[in-house]
């Protein structure tokens, strides 16, 4: 509710301060690419600024726009599976293991897991963000969870 009032109060910057870092980290986990995450966050907020008070729920809108921008960018780069096997990739342990594991899942499984386990969104909200139906999100979550657990166990071995 608090976020809903932000645009009216000129508070997109406040939304960025509250959510920006979390959104960026979620997009890094989704895309495996800091630059792409930065681009998607900046673009989503730039578009939100351009829309002004026409945004009724700026928080949900920005999350949805940023994930769709990131997914579009991944596809445009022709690598829907992100390049996390790249040994030169700079990321501290332990997030590196998680992000590498996520990279082996499908884009929708990645998005569903990140939005559920990191951000805490429910199935219906995730469906709104990735533009899918809750039914499909449940499949992504269940299968992604199973696969990610297996991958993380392999990493431990």
């Amino acid at each position, binding site marked *: *509710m*608090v976020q*809903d*009032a932000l645009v*009216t*109060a*000129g*508070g997109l*910057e*406040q939304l*960025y301060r509250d959510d*920006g*870092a979390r959104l*960026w*980290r*979620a997009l*890094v*986990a989704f895309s495996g690419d800091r630059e792409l995450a*930065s681009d998607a*966050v*900046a*673009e*989503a907020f*730039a*578009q939100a*600024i351009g829309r*002004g*008070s*026409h945004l*009724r*729920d700026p928080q949900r*809108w920005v999350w*949805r726009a940023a994930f*769709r921008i990131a997914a*579009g960018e991944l*596809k445009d780069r*022709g690598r*829907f599976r992100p390049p996390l096997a790249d040994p030169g990739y700079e*990321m501290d342990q*332990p*997030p590196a293991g*998680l992000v590498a594991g996520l990279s082996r899942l*499908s884009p929708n499984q990645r998005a569903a897991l*990140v939005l559920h*386990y*990191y951000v805490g969104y429910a199935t219906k909200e995730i469906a*709104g963000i990735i*533009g*899918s*139906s*809750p*039914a*499909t999100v449940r*499949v992504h979550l*269940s*299968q992604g*969870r199973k696969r*990610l*657990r297996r991958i*993380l166990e392999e990493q431990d071995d």
Partner: protein
Amino acid sequence: MTDLEEQFRTLDRLDAPDLWPEAQKRQPGTRAPTRPRHPLAAAVLAFTVAAAGVGLAIWAFRGPPPAPKPRPAATPGSERIAFAAYFNGRWQIFSVDADGSDIAQLTDLSTDQFYPAWSPDGTRIAFSAQGGDGFMQIWVMDASGGDLERLTRGRAWNYLPQWSPDGSRIAFVSSRDGNEEVFVMNADGSEQTRLTDDPDEDLSPAWSPDGDRIAFQSNREGNNDIYVMSADGSQVTNLTNTAASGEFDPAWSPDGTRIAFVSDRDGDPEIYVMDEDGSSVSRVTRDAAHDRSPAWSPDGSAIVFESDRAGTVGLFVLNLDGGTVLSLTDVAEACCPAWQPGVPQETGASPGVAVTRCTQATTSGDFDGDGTTDEAEFIEVASGSVSCDRDGEVFENLSSQEVLVRFGSGQTLEQPFTDCQGGLCAYVFTATDLDGNGRDELAIDLTSAAAIGLVEFYRVDPDAVRALVIADPGDPPFVRPGPAILGGGFDSGVQSPIVCRVNENGSRELISIHAENVGDRLSGPWKVHTTTMVLQGDRLVVTSTGDAESSFPETTGIPSFSKTSPFENGCF
């Protein structure tokens, strides 16, 4: 905290850059727009459709549907559409007439059900049911929800069933071999056979009407494309062959000449149609929302599909001849539609969807200016038979909200209301005459009880309730152009009362006050910004703005939003 939650918490160790300066100076790119539609636009569209007599009823707002009656002799075009909808906290299978009327709930199970598929004679429905172990299994039932029979078992996902045109077999997707492959089985569940075999995901099988071929989606070449194979799994051909975009959800037209599918080649998922050999591709939906899951009408003239264009995921019907898109289910969240083929049989009795309509607020005024009093009600529609006496509690099973206006003239207006922030309104509801023209406007508090109020102003016409608009350029950042939503402080130090004032010369002004406490006491000092507006037609035009520093009485602080009076109203 689960193991995975702990893993994801490690993301917090990543140092995030400050991107706000970049966002501020960046010109938004030319990427596909991701605009949300104004919720009222969807409501008005839905109402207009109903009022125009097109017959697409908005069942969620119509109260309990009549008990379904057996239909002895179906007439052409009376086929039903099966779908899954979120109801009472679970996804269940429903069916509805193609004109949006006569909704019936077919399953009432303790788990979620999805992906209904009709048998070719229209008497049976296969669907996917989530079991207690988390996996989905395929079941079949008759068209009224009875005679349930389970077809698949095991610790794997078995879902997306599709009946063969002769009714003898069912194609489906199974993850039993480690990843999704297309399988086929006899209609009684026997002889389950794998048709595809590759390391990537094969999904969404769709039979050709002659039964010789099966279209499906696969990402075996790196991204999703539509493929077609012989019904025995041989002779696989990529029909779409696009490296840069995803294609999915194929659906064969009833005459076998075309395939509808979804592609994001133009930026966001839209419905496309191509010839069955992959040629002559044309886009048939145009909306920045995600459109998916197309299913053809039996005569091939229309496609029902799933879209989040109205905010939540719902069902829409596209008339291919005229290109018109009409909402089938409106507010209820719904997915995965399937159109009943051919002439339906008797459906028999099936349980209706019980809903309770609770009036949460009433107000009266002269909205149409005819000199008689009009009564307005704000109604909550809750699933099931519930008590309307909430004692401040929010309905867990709130399914929709509605504004009902009974005009003094005898006319009644009933309109879905979807503007409540986060799905809940505080139910403050006031009539006021902002411009003194003898017609009252309606003010509704859009915020839930926990937040300081956002009030939206509406013009009530006999045919629709429409939001007033703040005219360009408004008074950014506090009063921006667009729907007239005013108020909304977001912490205890910032409040935004709204005042309506009648001046000595009779002119009327709406004043929005944005006050920020720059002192360390409730009394202030406060930095106060005022925006004064007058209503001209349906537009609120900003006439003056002002900044001042003020103090207020220690006991009350700045005049604040109150639940009983949304704004200091001198305009009655």
